[in-house]
């Protein structure tokens, strides 16, 4: 059995280790060893689910060893990890650990997105709880819950309309005391669909000729607002998310295939474009919104 060791900290900065480990193409049973995991964010949890699903494509469902620390298990289960993982790992992970009735920092538990109804359900859930978190932790104005819901809706629709496959979304607020000295809200979206390159290929690859690839496809969608749909009104989602995230001085990155593109604020070390990453199906979107500092 191949063992993929999960690092003690798994978040948006090092999920590449997971994608690389899965990319190797080796078949046979896989164990995701998360016993040492001490910290993860929505990006890390969704990456674990996605990597598990890819590892299981050979026919043998992967296994997972949950974190040894009960509070870590409690924390990931508070985000609905065990429930989502039950469909991917065998045996399904138990919902062990301490699980508070409802944590105030959970904006949205890991939620499968397959249909437009799922998008409605996710927006509905966020509306009922995000207002207090955004205003209390991030010091955003009361109306920010609307923009936050719009961002969530648009990123989830990206799965339904473009990926042609299912995915997940999750969002949580944290205190990034050491890293940024501020609270942040993190939205992660992950699908295992056909990715940006395949989605745009038929309509747009010719104009880019031999430059066409994962990075060019991301640039076309991210910077130029191109979509596979011919209507003028299409392609606004990502553009509008970029504008709103920039207004909040946030980080937005989209990974698809072997590339990642980002709008990175000054507090982030994300490069604007990364290429030649490990090949991974679908698209992964990461949004980090920092607390307002009163500037």
């Amino acid at each position, binding site marked *: 059995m191949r063992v993929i060791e999960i690092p003690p900290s798994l978040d948006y900065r090092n999920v590449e280790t997971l994608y690389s480990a899965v990319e190797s193409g080796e078949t046979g049973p896989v164990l995701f060893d998360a016993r040492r995991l001490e910290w993860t964010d929505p990006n890390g949890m969704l990456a674990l689910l996605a990597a598990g699903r890819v590892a299981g494509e050979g026919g043998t469902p992967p296994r997972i060893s949950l974190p040894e620390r009960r509070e870590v298990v409690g924390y990931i289960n508070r985000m609905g990890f065990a429930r989502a993982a039950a469909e991917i790992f065998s045996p399904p992970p138990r919902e062990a650990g301490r699980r508070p009735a409802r944590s105030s920092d959970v904006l949205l538990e890991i939620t499968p997105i397959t249909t*437009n109804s799922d998008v*409605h359900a996710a*927006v509905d859930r966020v509306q009922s709880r995000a207002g207090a978190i955004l205003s209390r932790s991030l010091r955003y104005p009361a109306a920010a819950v609307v923009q936050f*819901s719009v961002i969530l809706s648009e990123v989830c*629709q990206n799965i339904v*309309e473009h990926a042609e496959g299912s995915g997940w979304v999750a969002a949580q607020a944290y205190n990034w005391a050491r890293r940024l000295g501020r609270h942040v809200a993190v939205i992660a979206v992950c699908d295992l669909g056909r990715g940006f390159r395949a989605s745009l290929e038929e309509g747009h690859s010719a104009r880019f000729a031999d430059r066409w690839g994962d990075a060019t496809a991301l640039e076309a969608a991210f910077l130029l607002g191109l979509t596979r749909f011919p209507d003028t*009104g299409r392609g*606004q989602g990502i553009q*509008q998310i970029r504008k709103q995230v920039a207004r909040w001085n946030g980080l937005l990155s989209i990974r698809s295939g072997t590339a990642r593109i980002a709008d990175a604020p000054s507090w982030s070390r994300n490069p604007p474009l990364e290429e030649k990453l490990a090949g991974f199906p679908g698209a992964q979107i990461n949004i980090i919104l920092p607390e307002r500092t009163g500037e």
Partner: protein
Amino acid sequence: MSDRSGLHPGGRSGIDVSAIVRDALASPHADLVTRPTGRAVRKAIEARIAPSRPPVSVSLVDFTRVRVIDFSCADEVVAGLLLRHLPPGRPRDAFFLFRAVEEVHGHAVGEVLARHGLAAVCTFGGGRFRLVGSASRGERAAWSVLERRERIRHCDSASLLGPGGRALLGRLCERRLAYRDSAGGSAALTALARTLRDRDPPGSQRSAQ
């Protein structure tokens, strides 16, 4: 019957979008999200203005009880409605006014209008309407004068708006941001709405929907 704008409006409908969303989704909350939802809402609005309407109608599309509207939905509902009723081959002679809450809906509505090069007559509370979206400075100025005066006769357009006034009013009428009456004069869409409100109280108007 002639209203005070000198028009013969066919009717004004107040269309509560939140009620349409709740009916369509069987949900207690009115969240206008996802493109299919927007498409369904647009079709429901069109179905409401379609049956046995007189030649001209003005509909007030009311978003005020909608909790959230995303760009896909705003594109389908606002831009979609206007685009469908803009060309000469439009399904009916329908005009639209929009009522919304600026902090909740204003941004999405403004962005989709600008993206399509459209403008719309909107109120964000307080009863004052304004032109939102893509319009030239001259169009905005002409629209403001027309909105204030409610109606401008053809022969008065140059004196009120300057030498290019007729062309500007003509452009507003082409863009369905004003109404061209049979005598060649122009009327503000809100004037029609006000006339009908006086003639037909909002309660009875809504219950008739």
